[in-house]
Every structure is written in structure tokens, then in C-alpha cells.
């Protein structure tokens, strides 16, 4: 047997994993754990993991989640929205679904939102038909590990031409489990042809303490469908947050994703996007604000497979103290993807001498009629702007905050939903060092 961590844990856990007894699923889990065992956890020797080193991870320092880890009293669920937006809300604590804190009972016809476990009981064929099955390629050990465990998660199905007006909010609260736990959530989001939905997901650490999340989310955006997919990662400062997104975008469909990362000791989001149909569009963007020794990695691959597809990526971040940011963005224009329009931008603001940014943009083009651009900049706060604000009486700390906010504001332009944009700016303002009264003022206007 391999020495890859968690393989033994799998043997103990498999009998109680969701959907146990479903032949296809059991077989999937077994083959995945074998693939994972052969690969082991990713190391910096892999090209796509060059800039991100995982700490020593073993089953000894991360135990499996038990039901009781999610059953403690929560007095206040931190919704991203201040006012009641009528959001359909699902709450998970350490991966355990909390029906008592959720409100998913008022959904339009044709919409299903349920925990993975429930979906596997009700409609296992649907899950089987839509769950991605990449097979583990080089460096996809985390995907295989998740496919073996799949111990929690959400399944969302938006039926043909159904437009869900209110946002769907998935709130994940993690930590306070006594000792560090590992979770492997597997989410499935399916928008059938012509459907529209806005999904807002947040990960929030409850106090200090480490835990490991290895999530995979499979996304299908059907023909002409529109999915707005927003994520806020605010894990505890000792947490490891690893997330893989596999996204398939159909003809004339739009996928708009924006992620904000403001927590986690190590966070890495890997997105693999396929523009499978003519006229498909994706906007994959995000912001990150790191301090202390936090590390944030955004790795993306966008495959333009069909003609007239467009993609846009804007990743902007602020790095303080000894934090580190990584952006690896690859755009692949396949030979049939004529008239592809791909635009990619990485901008980082270093507000400490010891912070570091590594950006690696890559373009691979096999078609001849394409428009692609990419750019990466790393800079500091502009001294002239700082002096300008200070010369108007604004103290230095506040002036720096204003300039950071100004910088971040540019990246939030990528978010088309006003309520979400305001909520995310609010999170950013709260991240800023001191002088939070500025945030209060800002909001009132």
C-alpha cells in the first residue's frame, strides 16, 4: 500500500460515506482511492504546484468528521447579506448539514437544492450522470482524493428555463471541532438549458484552529443558461483550503465567477473551465487580501474548444506582512475555436517589503483567428496618491486604506450583481487595518 495519507482512513470510513451501497459510487470511490494512492499529495515538483507547498499532512493530524462535529450551538449565522434578500440558504457546520439553520423551503418549481447525501438517496441517477469523472491526470491527486471520500456537499439543479431571482446562499462554518478535521465536500451545480441563477458561497472559520478542506465542485451551465457564482473564503488563519472547480459551459451560456479570499493559512483554488459550445462566455475573476503568513494560489485553465467563445479573467490582490500570492492562468485556444476572445489580467499590490507575488500567465493558441491578451503587474501603493490624500488632512493609515479600497474597487467591477458587489466590498473594508469607521461612512452613502 502507498504511504499517501488518508488511504487507511478511507478503509475505515467507506462504509458510512454518503450513498454507500450504490454500486457505481462504490466503484468510483475504490478506483479513485487507488489513483490517489499512486499519486500522493501534490508537491512543488509538479509544474502546477511550483509555488505552493503544502505542509506535512497526515491522517494523524487531520481526523475524519463525525456528526457531532457539526452539532454545536450557533447563535449567529454570518450571512454575506445584511438585509434579508430572500436568499435560499443552506448552512453546513464542519460539513454537516444544519437544517435548523437553513431556509431552503421556498424554492420555485424546477429547482432542487439539497445536501449530497439526500440527493444520492432521492435521485442517484441524476448525480451519477452529472458528476465529473476526469480520471486522475498528473497533479489531480486532490481530485481523486475527493472522489474517493465525497463526504458532504450540495447538489443544485435548476430546471430548464427556470430563472431563480433570489440568490442561493451556501454558508459553510468550519472549526471548533476539538481537534483538526478533514473534509472532502463534493458539490454539483447543474443549470439546464436557459436556466438562470446566482449562487453565493461562503467559508467562514469559527475562531482559531486548523482544519483541512479538499472540495471539488462540478458545474454545468446548459445552453443559453446564466450562472453567477460567487465565493468568499474567510477560513481561520490556520486552515488549509483546497478547492477544485470543473466547469462546463454550453452554447451561448454565461458563467460569471468571482472569488474573494481573505483567510486561510494556505488556500488554493484551481479552476478548469471548458467552453464547450459556440458563443459561450466565462468571466473568472477574483480578489485576495492576505496578511501574516497566509498564502493564496489561484490557478486557472480555460479551454476554448468552440468558435466565438469569450473569456475574461481579472485577479487582483493585496499582500501584507510575509504573505504570498500566486496566480497561474492558462488560456488554451483549441484549433476549432476560431474568433476566440480571451483576456487575462493579474495585478497585485504589495504593501509590505516581505510580501511576495508569483504570476505565471500562459497562452496556448492552436487557432489562427483569435484575439488574446494577458498582463501581470506587481506594484506598491503610489507615493504621489498617498501624499495627495495626506495633504488634504487624511492620516496616513486611512489614506493607505482608501488607496487599497480604490485598487480593490477596480477588481469588483467584474461582479455584475450589485448586492453581492457591495457585500464583498464590505468584507474587504473589514479586512483593512484599523480605521473601520471609514467602512461605516462608506456604506451610508
Amino acid at each position, binding site marked *: 500500500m502507498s504511504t499517501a495519507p488518508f488511504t487507511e482512513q478511507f478503509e475505515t470510513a467507506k462504509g458510512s460515506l454518503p450513498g454507500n451501497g450504490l454500486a457505481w459510487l462504490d466503484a468510483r470511490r475504490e478506483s479513485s482511492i487507488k489513483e490517489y494512492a499512486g499519486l500522493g499529495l501534490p508537491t512543488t515538483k509538479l509544474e502546477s504546484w511550483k509555488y505552493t507547498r503544502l505542509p506535512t499532512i497526515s491522517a494523524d493530524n487531520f481526523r475524519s468528521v463525525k456528526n457531532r462535529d457539526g452539532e454545536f450551538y450557533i447563535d449567529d449565522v454570518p450571512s454575506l447579506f445584511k438585509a434579508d434578500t430572500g436568499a435560499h440558504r443552506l448552512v453546513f457546520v464542519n460539513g454537516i448539514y444544519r437544517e435548523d439553520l437553513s431556509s431552503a423551503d421556498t424554492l420555485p418549481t424546477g429547482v432542487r437544492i439539497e445536501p449530497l447525501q439526500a440527493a444520492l438517496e432521492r435521485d442517484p441517477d441524476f448525480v451519477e450522470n452529472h458528476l465529473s469523472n476526469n480520471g486522475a491526470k498528473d497533479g489531480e491527486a486532490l481530485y481523486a482524493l475527493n472522489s474517493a471520500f465525497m463526504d458532504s456537499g450540495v447538489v443544485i439543479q435548476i430546471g430548464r428555463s427556470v430563472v431563480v431571482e433570489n440568490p442561493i446562499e451556501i454558508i459553510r462554518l468550519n472549526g471548533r471541532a476539538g481537534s483538526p478535521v478533514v473534509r472532502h465536500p463534493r458539490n454539483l451545480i447543474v443549470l439546464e438549458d436557459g436556466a438562470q441563477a446566482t449562487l453565493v458561497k461562503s467559508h467562514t472559520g469559527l475562531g482559531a484552529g486548523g482544519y483541512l478542506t479538499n472540495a471539488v465542485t462540478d458545474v454545468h451551465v446548459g445552453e443559453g443558461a446564466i450562472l453567477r457564482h460567487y465565493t468568499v473564503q474567510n477560513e481561520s488563519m490556520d486552515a488549509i483550503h483546497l478547492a477544485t472547480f470543473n466547469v462546463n459551459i454550453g452554447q451561448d451560456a454565461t458563467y460569471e465567477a468571482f472569488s474573494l479570499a481573505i483567510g486561510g493559512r494556505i488556500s488554493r483554488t484551481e479552476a478548469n473551465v471548458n467552453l464547450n459550445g459556440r458563443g459561450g462566455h466565462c468571466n473568472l475573476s477574483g480578489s485576495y487580501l492576505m496578511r501574516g503568513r497566509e498564502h493564496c494560489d489561484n490557478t486557472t485553465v480555460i479551454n476554448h474548444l468552440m468558435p466565438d467563445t469569450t473569456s475574461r479573467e481579472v485577479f487582483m490582490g493585496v499582500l501584507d506582512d510575509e504573505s504570498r500570492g500566486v496566480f497561474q492562468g492558462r488560456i488554451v485556444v483549441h484549433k476549432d475555436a476560431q474568433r476566440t476572445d480571451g483576456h487575462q489580467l493579474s495585478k497585485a499590490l504589495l504593501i509590505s517589503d516581505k510580501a511576495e507575488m508569483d504570476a505565471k500567465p500562459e497562452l496556448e493558441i492552436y487557432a489562427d483567428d483569435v484575439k488574446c491578451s494577458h498582463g501581470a503587474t506587481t506594484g506598491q501603493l*503610489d*507615493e*504621489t*496618491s498617498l*501624499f*495627495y*490624500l*495626506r*495633504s*488634504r*488632512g*487624511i*492620516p*496616513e493609515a*486611512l*489614506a493607505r486604506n*482608501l*488607496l487599497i*479600497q*480604490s*485598487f*480593490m*474597487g*477596480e477588481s469588483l467591477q467584474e461582479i455584475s450583481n450589485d448586492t453581492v458587489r457591495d457585500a464583498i466590498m464590505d468584507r474587504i473594508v473589514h479586512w483593512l487595518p484599523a480605521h473601520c469607521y*471609514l467602512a461605516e*461612512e*462608506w456604506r*451610508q*452613502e
Partner: protein
Amino acid sequence: MLEIKNLHASVEGKEILRGVDLTINAGEVHAIMGPNGSGKSTLSYLIAGREGYEITEGQILYDGKDLTDMAPEDRAAEGVFLAFQYPVEIPGVPNTTFLKEAVNAIRRYHNEEELDALQFVKMLRAKTKELGISDDMLKRAVNVGFSGGEKKRNEILQMAVLNPKLAVLDETDSGLDIDALKVVSDGVNHLRSPDRAILVITHYQRLLDHIVPDFVHVLAHGKIRRSGGKELALELEEKGYAEYSVAAE
């Protein structure tokens, strides 16, 4: 109000000012004219407190206090204002928010109660009306997408809102057409008062047709070479700065 004594200063090790002496009293408008590279902008930055501008000898006294070790925000709170030659664009920060932050920061400095949104807007509206500035300019991000004239008008608006005791206008005429020049000058003239001192820094005489100074000084290679009344500006317009060149020294 402002007393500059034997001021020597350098930037990145290069000596720019070589002993400037200048005294400005409340109610007076002074103009400093000079060729490019004479140290005009350096002098304005030294008064406002920009980092990287080092005083090597002499001092700047403001209301009898030495400004040398004072942070720019504290100078602003004490009533020093610099209108920039090239006002900075700050995307994403609405002009109103910026002005309100500035006003309230200064009020906090003086242990005064901050203005709430309503009080502030009321005050701001009065100022924009006085200066003939459109509300549209307040909603937009600071200087973003502003024309040259709008940027300079925005500087004058900031000056009106912050109500300084000493205002330094650095090349306020640069990049302005004649109409914009008139609007900006009217704004400045509007702010002339017996309690306020104004220092206008300019290369050209034309601004001084609109903002008529009490005193004119010629700054050339780091020193005030000549001082006089407003007629000195006209003389410079006619003869140029040739006689103040290094070669002429």
C-alpha cells in the same frame, strides 16, 4: 504667517534650493515666478511636507511653528493647503467621500465633532454653489475622467471646503484654456480674505492678470533673485528669464 529662512533643500542628493528667504503675511497674495527647474515645485512640496524632500539648512516657520518634522496631514489640519499641478486620480473613491473624509479627519485633529452626512452635504452644496461647480463632479471618482480644467476646479473646491489659512497654488494655470483659467482664478479670488495668505507659483504671467498679486518674486536656480510688486510680472513677460539664467549670474 509663513516665514521661510535661508532654506536649503535637496532631492535625491541633488541640491535644489540654495537659501530661499520669504515672508508672507495674512491677507497677502504672493507670486513666485521662475524658469523651469528653478525649484518652484520643490518649494511647494517642502511647505506641504512631501516625503523625499529634505531640508539641509534653514527652516520653514508657519504661525511661528517649525514645519520640518510635521506630517503632511498635520500641516493640512493646521491650515496649509497645496493645490497640485497634476491632481491625482483616485478610481473608485467618490469625490464627496474623499472630501468628507478630509473634512472630518481635520475636525478630529482639532477635537471637533465630525459632520454627519447631512451636515456635510449642506456645507458642500453651499461651496459648490459659490464656485459654480456641478453636482455631477461630486459623484464621480476623484479626478477620474476629469478634464484638465475640471481637475483644477476640483482643487479649488477642495481648498474652499478645507478652508486653509495658507494656500499654495502650484502651476494652477498649466493645462488650462482661457475660459478655464478665468473660472479657476475667480474661484481663487473668491477665497481671498484678510485672514488667508495665498502663494501662487507660476511660470507665466497670464495667471497674474486674473489673480493679481501683492508681491512678485523671481526664483531662479534655488534662490529668490528679485522681489517687487505686480509690475515685476509684466517685466518678466516682456524680457523673459534670460537675465536670471545660470550664465547671467
